[in-house]
């Protein structure tokens, strides 16, 4: 039993050992297996590890390779797409070029010198008036289209270009198949090889007929405008922003004796002898552009070389260029020297005339007085004598003659009265002796006696200091007014007011008559005779006084006369 048991335990132990051994093997915890003669190394883990590594490496390589392939593929696709794009771009570009050539009426061509073959773009054919390909491109066929008059020059230009191997340009005419004559412009370049031989010649040819026409029209328009500007009497100058002269017309050049070389491009205020260097003018010109304003009628006296000072009137305004906004100034200078001289002459003449008028008035007054004196001294005295003698004779004469005497005596009395009145009218002695107020009072009494209105006079009560002819003028003016009242106003009363101011005297004649429209008077003045209202007004104005009528229909009339006092008297 014991032996059995021992055997059993040993067997169990061996089994456990075997199980442990198997587990160790499974768990890869074994390094070596020992045999009868040799040892076998067990490196499962390492083998697996290296296998796994190899596999991973392989996988990595596959991934990398796949990525590489994808990349190459993408690049290839990109390249293809790029090429397609480039091709499409090229096609578009070619189409555009063709269109551009068509629009610009410009064609290009190439000439391979070695093979003497030419290529023309479609537009070249069209410029010549043929369909593309309709003629064989070449020098001679091209020359056949060139205008006969230009053919030789063009041919020799081509020869020169080939010899000198230099780029060239040229303009010539062609005759199209339909007979149209067109202007062409060519630009030609030469391509050389290493030895300096011309291998290829490339050129463009453009139809410039329209451009030529426009240029000609513009030149004509410019010439037209310039001829107008040059014909204008006024001096015209165009200035730029810095006040530099862009151009000046002929009138300016002639007036100021400046040739174009001393004008163009120069600063305006440095022209001539510096007579334009006027700060105020410079300021005004600058303001034209900076404030976009213009000025007119700027007057100045300006010395001009070789002649006397001139009177000028300047006007300026901004003008803008058709392209851009550089801004220019058009300065117009009017030479008004003659005008100013004439004006001065007129002023002088007028003054002279006024003096003459004054002299005339004084002389008239003097004559009046002389006539009045003569009337009084001769005719008046004679009549008085005749009347007295007649009275003596009447007493001695027979009774039957008394009636005749009486009649003659009445006639003489009438003549005396008339002479006296005439003398008074010509030059009232009261005026000379007692002055204006007294004379006017006397006149007012006369009118009150003879006419239907009552006339009253108010004054300062003392002699108003007036020169003889002013006094006489005022006196006759009042008389004229009273005559008018008597004739037209149908007034019941007239008041005359005399006032002495500090520098002048004022006479107001006012009536309560029917009045009138003063504007009608002006229209009527041509009919005035002699010492009319217009004449009074003229003379008063000339003396430095005034004449005012204030009247309206049904409101009476008020006339105010103002005349200066006697200066010498005032100075005393």
């Amino acid at each position, binding site marked *: 039993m014991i032996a059995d048991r021992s055997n059993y335990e040993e067997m169990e132990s061996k089994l456990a050992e075997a199980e442990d*051994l198997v587990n160790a093997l499974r*768990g890869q915890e*074994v*390094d*070596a297996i020992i045999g009868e003669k040799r040892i076998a190394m067990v490196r499962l883990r390492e083998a697996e590890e290296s296998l796994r590594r190899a596999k991973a490496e392989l996988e990595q390589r596959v991934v990398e390779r796949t990525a590489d392939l994808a990349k190459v593929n993408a690049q290839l696709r990109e390249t293809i797409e790029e090429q397609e794009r480039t091709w499409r771009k090229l096609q578009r570009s070619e189409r555009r070029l063709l269109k551009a050539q068509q629009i610009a009426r410009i064609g290009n061509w190439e000439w391979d010198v070695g093979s003497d073959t030419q290529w023309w773009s479609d537009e070249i054919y069209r410029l010549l008036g043929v369909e593309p390909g309709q003629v064989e491109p070449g020098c001679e066929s091209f020359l056949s289209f060139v205008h006969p008059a230009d053919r030789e020059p063009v041919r020799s230009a081509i020869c020169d270009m080939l010899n000198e191997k230099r780029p060239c340009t040229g303009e010539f005419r062609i005759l199209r198949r339909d007979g149209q004559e067109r202007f062409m412009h060519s630009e030609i370049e030469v391509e050389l090889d290493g030895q300096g031989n011309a291998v290829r010649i490339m050129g463009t040819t453009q139809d410039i007929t329209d451009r030529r026409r426009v240029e000609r029209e513009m030149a004509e328009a410019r010439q037209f405008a310039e001829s107008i500007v040059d014909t204008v009497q006024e001096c015209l100058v165009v200035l730029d922003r810095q006040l530099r002269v862009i151009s000046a017309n002929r009138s300016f050049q002639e007036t100021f004796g400046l040739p174009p070389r001393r004008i163009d491009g120069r600063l305006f205020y440095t022209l001539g002898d510096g007579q334009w260097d006027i700060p105020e003018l410079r300021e005004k010109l600058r303001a034209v552009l900076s404030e976009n304003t213009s000025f007119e009628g700027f007057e100045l006296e300006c010395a001009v070389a070789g002649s006397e000072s001139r009177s000028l009137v300047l006007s300026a305004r901004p003008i803008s260029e058709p392209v851009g906004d550089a801004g220019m100034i058009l300065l117009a200078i009017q030479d008004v020297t003659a005008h100013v001289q004439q004006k001065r002459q007129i002023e002088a003449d007028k003054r002279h005339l006024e003096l003459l008028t004054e002299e005339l008035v004084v002389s008239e007054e003097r004559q009046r007085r002389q006539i009045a004196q003569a009337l009084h001294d001769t005719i008046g005295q004679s009549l008085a004598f005749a009347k007295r003698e007649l009275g003596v004779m009447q007493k001695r004469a027979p009774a039957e003659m008394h009636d005749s005497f009486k009649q003659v005596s009445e006639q003489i009395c009438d003549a005396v009265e008339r002479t006296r009145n005439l003398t008074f009218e010509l030059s009232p002695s009261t005026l000379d002796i007692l002055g204006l107020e007294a004379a006017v009072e006397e006149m007012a009494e006369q009118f009150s006696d003879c006419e239907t209105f009552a006339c009253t006079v108010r004054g300062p009560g003392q002699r108003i200091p007036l020169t003889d002819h002013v006094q006489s003028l005022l006196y006759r003016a009042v008389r004229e007014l009273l005559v008018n009242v008597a004739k037209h106003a149908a007034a019941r009363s007239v008041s005359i007011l005399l006032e002495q101011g500090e520098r002048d005297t004022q006479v107001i004649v006012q009536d309560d008559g029917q009045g009138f429209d003063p504007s009608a008077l002006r229209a009527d003045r041509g009919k005035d005779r002699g010492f009319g209202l217009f004449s009074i007004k003229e003379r008063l104005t000339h003396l430095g006084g005034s004449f005012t009528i204030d009247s309206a229909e049904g409101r009476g009339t008020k006339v105010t006369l103002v005349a200066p006092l006697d200066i010498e008297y005032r100075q005393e």
Partner: protein
Amino acid sequence: MKRGAEFTQRQAGGKSSPTYHLRLFVAGDETNSAIARASLDRIRSEHLVGQSCDIEIIDVLEDFRPALEENVLVTPALVIRKSGVRTVVFGNLSNTEKVLTALRIGGGTQ
């Protein structure tokens, strides 16, 4: 690596405690053998302190006859002898629990 006797360590532990005779068979510096050596070293320093214990490490690559004699056919293998009872643990001894059980069995079930 030299044979057993020179590496035998006898620790002066308790007087009455039985002595462990441990023979570890390894194959040079192969991975599992190195793990086994380190594991045994750790177990000894952690669990056999104060125990009487001699350890012999035999490299079968130098001489595999002792292995054949012990009937050990694979390495690493730890032959434990205690009080005449022989137990063998195969593998790299990383399963400490298993080794400790073998050691306890070796010492406890007598």
